[in-house]
């Protein structure tokens, strides 16, 4: 439905960047997440699509029609910002119906629609209150309701949960999935949190220094990031520098050596922590590496361990088992699921 063509915009954070998006297409009804560090240009791209910023070059099309020349208020998009930005001088109902009022819809009709949307947001009975009387999560729900009541063609969200406390954030995440499903609205969601993107999105686009470096479904992205920076952004920590030679990977430190098919190249070996099998120390079998546990943390259902192999340190996730508890300083042997090993070129 939305199509971006060779969009270009100079923008400034701590230094000057040029945002350049060659081609991006959003599908009707999809949940698309833009993931990137701060300063990567994700918010700039969002504002370009919203019409709050004008591109230096390039075009935007909505269902085939160019919209680059339209001001933000005429595009029929809505946006939820980091802060709820509820107008403090209006009560909740007036806030929610603001967009309808701007469209010139009569008071009776817009109040009826407002009450209906408040009900869907689980905020019936709050209509006469003022924003300062609501909690942060409730305020952000009102903000979302206010954006949905106008039936936008595209809903833009700029890190809408980042100012909420962790528990509320998780609740809101679940709830947003529900809303997305029941309203069938197309959502473009900007975030720097990979877990949030994985949890919510149908597709994720990764931004880095103003460029869309990778775009895929969450699972594919996680299994094959295009470069180390992207892998780190996705929260993958087991990245070992080294090179592939004659079917084997050898780490720069020399302590990790594993069978790995591929061309002779320099780069990084990516090991997903859940693809490592660990057993108590003893005689190492083929393709098993000896190591020492240096740290143990509890993650519900799992033990998250750090295992030192010489100079290298790997993160290992092990399912909790009643029969055995790992301890720090223990010698262990690690085996790797070959299919989960990925090589990322330098």
């Amino acid at each position: 439905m939305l199509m971006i063509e060779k969009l270009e915009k100079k923008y400034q954070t701590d230094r000057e960047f040029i945002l350049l998006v060659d081609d991006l297409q959003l599908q009707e009804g999809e949940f698309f997440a833009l993931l990137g560090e701060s300063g990567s240009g994700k918010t700039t791209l969002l504002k370009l699509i919203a019409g709050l910023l004008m591109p230096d070059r390039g075009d935007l099309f909505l269902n085939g029609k160019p919209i680059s020349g339209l001001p933000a208020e005429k595009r029929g998009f809505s946006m939820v910002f980091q802060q709820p930005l509820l107008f403090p001088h209006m009560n909740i109902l007036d806030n929610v119906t603001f967009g309808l009022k701007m469209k010139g819809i009569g008071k009776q009709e817009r109040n009826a629609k407002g009450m209906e949307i408040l009900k869907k947001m689980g905020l019936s009975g709050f209509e006469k209150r003022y924003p300062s009387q609501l909690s942060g999560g409730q305020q952000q729900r009102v903000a979302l309701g206010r954006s949905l009541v106008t039936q936008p063609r595209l809903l833009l969200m700029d890190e809408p949960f980042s100012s909420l406390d962790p528990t509320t954030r998780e609740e809101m995440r679940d709830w947003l999935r529900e809303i997305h499903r029941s309203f069938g609205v197309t959502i473009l969601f900007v975030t720097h949190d990979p877990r949030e993107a994985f949890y919510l999105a149908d597709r994720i686009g990764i931004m880095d220094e103003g460029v869309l470096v990778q775009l895929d479904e969450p699972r594919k992205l996680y299994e094959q990031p295009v470069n180390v920076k992207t892998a780190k952004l996705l929260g993958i920590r087991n990245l070992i520098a080294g090179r592939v030679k004659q079917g084997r990977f050898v780490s720069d430190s020399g302590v990790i050596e594993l069978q790995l098919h591929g061309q002779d190249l320099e780069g990084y070996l990516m090991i997903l922590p859940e693809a490592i099998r660990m057993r108590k120390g003893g005689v190492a079998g083929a393709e098993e590496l000896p190591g020492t546990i240096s740290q143990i943390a509890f993650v519900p259902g799992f033990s998250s361990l750090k295992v030192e192999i010489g100079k290298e340190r790997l993160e290992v996730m092990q399912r909790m088992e009643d029969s055995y508890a790992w301890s720090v300083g223990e010698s262990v042997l690690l085996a790797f699921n070959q299919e989960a090993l990925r090589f990322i070129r330098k």
Partner: protein
Amino acid sequence: MKLSIIKFLVVLGILFFLAPLVLTSLSAGWRWPMLWPAEISWRSWEYLFSGQSQTGIAVFNSLLIACGVTIVNLGLAIPAAYGLIRFPLKGKLIVQIILFAPLVIPPFVSLMGIHFTFIRLGLTESLPGLILAHLTPTLPYMIWALLSSYRTVGPEWEEQARMLGANGLQRMIHVVIPFLLPGILAGSSLSILVSLSQYLITFLIGGGQVITLPILLFPFISGGDPALGAAYALLFIGMAFLALFILDCLLKWSYRRVN
């Protein structure tokens, strides 16, 4: 307890300065070294409220000019302050200095030029001319009050309103102005008070044809009749207090609506 003592002292202080005015306005022939007026007389108050004194027209003119000035000020200062806050502008400092210059430059300097120009344009001796002339000393206060108010309306509020479909005018009316209300009321108070107390500008531009309260007041205090001068001064204070009180009520009402 401490607060009530301070309040008591403030009231005492005001009475200390007002009491001589009240006494003077009621006196007939109060000369040094007499501690009290020899005789109490309502003469000055009777004159003040009599038809020949022009008090009514003076109060009316004063308030009309003050309100007119304030409305024009708002029309000028709301966009001016907006421009200064929102847009990157080369030489912003110079623009600000020019806008605030009337606060430091003696009014007489600009007044002569304004007088000449107004004679040519036929604006002297008229209410519109006076309203325009009163802008010089009042506009800086209005811009000043609005600048600090604008700092509370970050651009994100307008972006949010835009994303809900509000065009420029709608954003101004429904979002920006409600945020500015405290500043608008503070600036209006200053604008009204400064306008009410103008003598020199009114005297020169009005040519003595437009009667305001300071025009009536001045000859009496500069030696003519202290009793009448005192009565007019009290009337002036009352009028100014009333204007402030009304604006203060409006301010509190708007705060209550926001919070």
